[in-house]
């Protein structure tokens, strides 16, 4: 997890100061929000669809082992090979071995967050194998040497001008400004790569257990090419992507497209059941499915946070999140960003790598309302916050949280005694005069950690006579009739 950066304040600070990024985030999240809203308004029974999808996922995840075994059985029946990878290293090794056995020199990739998660490109490059991203957004960030900043729109942090400059520098071409020209150039470059590639690597949006079919949705046609042109196709998929029956697929395709891009259906939906058959002209000779655990079974083991695995990676929670809208994807430090990233990254990576993420939310709950699987993200965040605190307490670590826990304890003790509480607010009234350089109605300076508040915000003054004292005077007044 070399690319992990975990200081949320530091990373978000960069993002907040980047005016281009602020514009891009606002524009894109607005557009996604609007499209989603229109797309779900077309469906009469959207709430029912969410409930049904959640029930299906809940049942699937509760019997995940059964469904995964069924999936394996059917993929093998179809002539494919299934590999089980317990972590990122194992998954990388498996894919490298497939590549070496197949004498692979170049790889084309369609968009896959799971391959980002295991940093596959890095491993392939180290083995002397060229790996080219073929989704336009992924192609852009690969050229720039960056990581995705959005689950479905990896390059949303880049403006048109950024991309013109990037293409001209990296591809040694003239400076084009029209998106049409830039897309044409990318298409020309990528078409050559598709024709040359020995192996195609994809992710999978769903895998149907009863038929042994993996399903990939996309809008550019690059995934179709990735999975059909090269002689070997490897799909890497998180364990949780399995769905039981073929008849469930229509529902999941609909809620995914509507929540993600506001489409009724993605432009391309590829259903892949194994390699080329004898009667077929096209398709790969080998088909491999790599099932990735990488921390997912830890999530599975927890009653409190298991629903984190219901996610279908639509990105709707990113688009609605007030925090994501300001800080963008990179501030979250790993491939998964926004509210879903804040709950799954700490669970997959461990709290030592992502201690800030469960706290990087105002708990506004907007994510829960747009999630097509009704994942209660705020509830999971609260659970994870508690785990961070408990873990710290057990390890007896000295740090900022030591002061925080002491502060909370003192505050709690004072709240247990109305007399102490009363004394404190009375004291605060007198002390605030020392700090207050404002106009007498507001506090403009505060001691740490509250100084963080006062940097940009005033605070109302403490009353000379707290309500509980005033109540003694007014409690016997008559009710107005």
């Amino acid at each position: 997890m070399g690319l992990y950066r975990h200081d949320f304040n530091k990373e978000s600070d960069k993002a907040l100061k980047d005016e281009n990024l602020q514009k891009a985030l606002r524009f894109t999240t607005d557009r996604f929000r609007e499209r989603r809203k229109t797309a779900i308004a077309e469906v009469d029974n959207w709430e029912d669809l969410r409930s049904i999808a959640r029930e299906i996922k809940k049942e699937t995840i509760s019997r995940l082992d059964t469904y995964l075994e069924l999936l394996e059985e059917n993929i093998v029946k179809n002539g494919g090979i299934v590999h089980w990878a317990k972590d990122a290293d194992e998954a990388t090794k498996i894919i490298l071995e497939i590549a070496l056995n197949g004498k692979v020199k170049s790889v084309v990739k369609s968009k896959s967050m799971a391959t980002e998660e295991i940093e596959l490109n890095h491993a392939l490059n180290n083995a002397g194998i060229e790996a080219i991203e073929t989704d336009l957004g992924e192609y852009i960030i690969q050229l720039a040497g960056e990581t995705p900043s959005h689950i479905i729109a990896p390059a949303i942090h880049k403006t048109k001008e950024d991309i013109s400059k990037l293409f001209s520098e990296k591809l040694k071409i003239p400076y084009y400004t029209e998106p049409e020209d830039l897309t044409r150039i990318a298409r020309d470059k990528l078409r050559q790569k598709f024709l040359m590639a020995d192996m195609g690597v994809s992710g999978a949006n769903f895998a149907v257990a009863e038929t042994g079919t993996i399903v990939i949705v996309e809008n550019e046609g690059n995934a179709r090419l990735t999975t059909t042109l090269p002689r070997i196709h490897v799909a890497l998929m998180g364990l949780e992507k399995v769905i039981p029956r073929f008849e469930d697929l229509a529902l999941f395709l609909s809620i995914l497209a509507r929540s993600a891009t506001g489409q009724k259906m993605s432009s391309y939906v590829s259903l892949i059941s194994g390699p080329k058959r004898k009667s077929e002209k096209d398709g790969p000779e080998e088909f491999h499915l790599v099932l990735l655990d990488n921390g997912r079974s830890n999530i599975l083991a927890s009653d409190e946070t298991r629903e984190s695995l219901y996610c279908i990676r639509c990105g709707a929670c990113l688009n609605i999140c007030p925090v994501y809208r300001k800080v963008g994807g990179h501030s979250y430090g790993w491939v998964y960003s926004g509210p879903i990233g804040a709950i799954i990254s700490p669970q997959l990576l461990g709290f030592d790598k992502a201690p800030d993420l469960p706290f990087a939310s105002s708990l506004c709950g907007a994510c829960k309302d747009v999630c097509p699987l009704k994942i209660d993200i705020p509830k999971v965040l609260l659970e994870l916050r508690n785990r961070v605190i408990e873990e710290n307490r057990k390890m007896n670590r000295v740090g900022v949280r030591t002061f925080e826990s002491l502060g909370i304890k003192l505050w709690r003790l004072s709240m247990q005694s109305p007399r102490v509480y009363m004394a404190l607010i009375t004291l605060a009234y007198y002390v605030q005069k020392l700090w207050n350089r404002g106009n007498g109605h507001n506090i403009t300076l505060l001691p740490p950690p509250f100084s963080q508040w006062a940097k940009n915000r005033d605070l109302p003054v403490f009353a000379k006579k707290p309500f509980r004292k005033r109540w003694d005077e007014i409690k016997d007044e008559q009710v107005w009739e």
Partner: protein
Amino acid sequence: MVEVLRRIGVDLDFLGDQTCCGQPAFNSGYHSDAKILAKRFLSLFDRDDYIVCPSGSCTSMVKIFYKELFKNNPEMHEIIERVSLRTHEFSDFIVNVLKMKDVGAYYAGKVTYHDSCHLLRELKIKDEPRKLINSVKGIDFIEMNNSDSCCGFGGTFSIKFPDVSVSILDEKLENIINTGAEAVVSADMGCLMQIGGALKRRKIPIETMHLAELLASDRG
């Protein structure tokens, strides 16, 4: 709140021993501290009266999150159920329990309303405050854009990530200012502190008012 509720004939009591429901500790991950304060609240308020609270956030702590906090303590479930059923947020109490809209308030001016997150999304209270505001005589009520998006407060979030918090707030202020309202009304102290704190700091002449303050108003 006392003035408004008395005006519409409610007999009130205030328990002088009350302090905090424990939400700040719960939201920060300190469940054992939160439990101590939650138990204190529950035993203090385990009476026959309605409990009315002028905050969506505190109310949702009692009505929604106490169950979460004590999910592994079945012995607490009965008292939580009992107390939370009688607990109501201020606007919910007037509109849904007392079945009233007009509380006899008068306010001549243009106001807008900010939906606080917990009131809206946890307690699902959206229309009640609007019904009350629209029934104020002389009022000119205008909706802001994205009234339902967060103001960036989030309790300790506002101190842990102050710049992100204020950046979210900037957009909220923009939407408030664009309405041309002279006052922004909300039903949660946290949001009002956050919004009001920045309006004051930037010397923007828009007043922040709790819904109860507006309803208590008889200014001509």
